[in-house]
């Protein structure tokens, strides 16, 4: 019984990590159709920002306030990653909007450059970020121990999702974004500045990659390639969820997270990975456009 519950929790926890990593991608790839291979490096930037903020706190802030560094790091990571994303969009990606293969290669190159930059600045070995003390330990339910750090990531994923939902569905900016993504030319003809929408939307997607990077520091040490490990999973989540559907990404993340954990529990790590890939392939045969696909009379 306990083992089942623990597996379930692990599944949800992995799902929330995947969701957090994929949320930014759901915006840049799902909504904007940009294949941004440097997304993993934006995650890496978020992780290193957390590391830098931690070091600043170690050196300049009285010790009893040290734990606050993590709370500070989240918005800083968001802003820095968003800034890098904005730079990337306006200097490179905007010239490649209708050339997906070119943008795939170009952003991959950018990713490699960012990795090397991280190596140059922080050195090749991984660096550790010590979790704030309030995330040490865990919640004990019966004989189950649920680590606070995992619960925190789950909460963070939910908060980010809610934030993105509110932004896209409840604000004028979000409405503009949706209009542009549905019919760019007509939105422009009605007075929406599509350039501005592109830059801001890409920056937001990148910013959430930064937040994900921040959260990843809770799970282990970080290095220049920390993002690369997650990029495939992130793309998978978005594709399984349905490109363009935010809530598809939720279903995709928790679906993959859950089955991954179950398979790994039943077999071992590598066989589990193989099984999850097989499952995804089978799923995409059944629903090629993902969980949330839509049909409207828009083309009448």
């Amino acid at each position: 019984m306990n083992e089942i519950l623990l597996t379930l929790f692990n599944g949800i926890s992995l799902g929330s990590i995947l969701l957090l990593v994929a949320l930014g991608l759901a915006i840049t790839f799902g909504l904007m159709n940009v294949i941004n291979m440097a997304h993993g490096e934006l995650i890496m930037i978020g992780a290193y920002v957390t590391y830098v903020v931690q070091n600043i706190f170690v050196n300049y802030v009285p010790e009893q306030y040290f734990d606050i560094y993590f709370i500070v790091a989240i918005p800083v990571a968001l802003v820095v990653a968003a800034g890098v994303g904005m730079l990337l969009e306006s200097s490179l990606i905007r010239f490649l909007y209708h050339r997906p293969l070119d943008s795939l290669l170009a952003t991959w190159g950018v990713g490699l450059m960012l990795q090397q930059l991280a190596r140059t600045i922080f050195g090749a070995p991984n660096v550790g970020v010590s979790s704030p003390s309030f995330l040490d330990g865990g919640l004990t339910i019966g004989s189950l121990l649920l680590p606070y750090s995992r619960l925190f990531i789950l909460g963070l994923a939910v908060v980010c999702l809610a934030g993105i939902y509110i932004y896209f569905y409840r604000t004028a900016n979000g409405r503009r974004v949706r209009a542009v993504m549905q019919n760019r030319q007509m939105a422009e003809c009605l007075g929406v500045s599509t350039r501005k929408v592109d830059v801001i939307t890409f920056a937001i997607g990148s910013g959430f990659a930064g937040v994900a990077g921040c959260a990843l520091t809770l799970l282990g040490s970080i290095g220049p390639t920390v993002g690369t490990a997650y990029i495939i999973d992130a793309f998978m989540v978005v594709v399984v969820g349905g490109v363009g559907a935010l809530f598809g990404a939720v279903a995709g993340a928790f679906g993959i997270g859950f089955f991954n954990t179950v398979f790994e529990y039943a077999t071992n790590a590598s066989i589990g990975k193989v099984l999850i890939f097989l499952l995804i392939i089978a799923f995409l045969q059944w629903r090629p456009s993902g969980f949330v696909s839509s049909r409207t009379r828009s083309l009448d």
Partner: protein
Amino acid sequence: MLELESIKSGYGESMVIRDIDLKVKDKQVVCVMGRNGVGKTTLLKTIIGILHANKGKVVYNDKDLTKRRPSYRARQGIGYVPQGREIFPKLTVYENLLIGLEAGGSKQINEDVYTYFPIIKEFKKRNGGDLSGGQQQQLAIARALVSNPSFLLLDEPTEGIQPNIVQEIQDVIIDIKKNGQTSMILVEQDLEFVKNVADYVYVIDHGSIVYESAVDQLNDKAVYRYLSV
């Protein structure tokens, strides 16, 4: 108000419009007629800026718009109702109207559109893509009207639409003209309706203007010559 000076425009290498001069005076309704494929839609696309003129000038209220983006032109008060309606399918009807406000002529939705098209108020919360073709056309017109544009571009607003809605749309166009606040270029095939609403008529063939006349001096035969297949 709007002036086109020897406009040349088209898609890539293929020139659809060669050398068109056209003038719309303040509060005037100008109809553009012609067979399918002679360049009427291309002309409107060049005015709103989806297509850039290869040669010539688009001047609006003494401002040269030739190199400007469509969003800038929209904010100058040009409303555009494209052929094929181009509703945002997954925005609600109301959100579609709100995007219409981006042109910035007014902060609030002009309530007149609900009087013109009661169906839009009724279907406020539905997705634009779930509306029928005729309803989408009404929404497209309403979306262009919400920001009180000083100039309207209407591309065959009654094409392929059921007769009772055609009547409704024509009544609205006549009403807008009567209000006398808005200039208009209307692409239209129905000569009877054109005579009803237009002040001036241009007929296009093979990308050039082949006939033009004030509506009261219109020679039906000349027009029909260019309209019949």
